[in-house]
């Protein structure tokens, strides 16, 4: 996976999957697939909490549940664009974050997925949130090195 700051407030994450584009796209919009991977490590996303209405203006909501302590992280987004199987755009009204997923057919049943994120969300800017993060200049310096 590669990532970079590509524009003013945008991040890009890219990964190549050994699967045909139609299947990878469906994984991103169908609850029975999303439940398998939407939560990061140690976090589940129960299928009954996933609401997907794949059309412009349709909702995209999940509740991620921490496996260790049961704490819940609801996510709430609205689809802006659905161009199966090439492009998927949603926004998070609470934060303004815009996420664009691009699916590129590499041939031979391989698909490159790029996640572009624009508009940095507000919760991470509050003093409370910042106080919760450890100062991590060393790690950040290492991260900067990966960008160069």
């Amino acid at each position, binding site marked *: 996976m590669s990532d970079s*700051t590509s524009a003013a407030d945008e991040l890009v994450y890219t*990964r190549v999957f050994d699967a045909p584009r139609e299947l990878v796209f469906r994984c991103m919009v169908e609850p029975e697939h999303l439940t398998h991977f939407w939560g990061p490590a140690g976090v589940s996303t129960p299928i009954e909490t996933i609401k997907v209405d794949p059309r412009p203006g349709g909702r995209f909501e999940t509740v991620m549940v921490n496996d260790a302590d049961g704490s819940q992280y609801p996510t709430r987004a609205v689809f802006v664009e659905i161009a199966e199987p090439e492009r998927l755009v949603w926004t998070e009204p609470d934060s303004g974050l815009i996420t664009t997923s691009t699916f590129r057919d590499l041939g031979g049943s391989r698909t490159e997925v790029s996640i572009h994120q624009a508009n940095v969300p507000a919760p991470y800017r509050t003093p409370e949130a910042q106080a919760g993060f450890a100062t991590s200049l060393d790690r*950040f310096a290492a991260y900067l090195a990966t960008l160069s």
Partner: protein
Amino acid sequence: MTVVQEQLDSTFAALADPTRRAIVARLARGDATVNELAAPFAMTLPGVSKHLKVLERCGLISRTRHAQFRPCHLERAALDSAASWIEESRRVWTERFDKLDEHLRDLQAKPSQDEATQ
């Protein structure tokens, strides 16, 4: 867009440039003058000063107004705020992609009973 949001947006813009990232990485090791910062780069002092102005405007660095050599200082709070968000977002998508990769393998290994197995 709030003032704070604009500031964080400009922080990301500032860090999108490789020379400015190198300057920030240098200042993470300690304060430095413009001359010291210019040394590793094949750049004129005005060229480096331009980058420093961008970093100063978004609050990533500060400079002493009256000191003779005006050493540049990295403002950790501004950097942490940007770094925390980047790290968290990157972690979530990395782990999500790991799981998706695994899920796609499962699906293609047994396409007829994909959901029953987990």
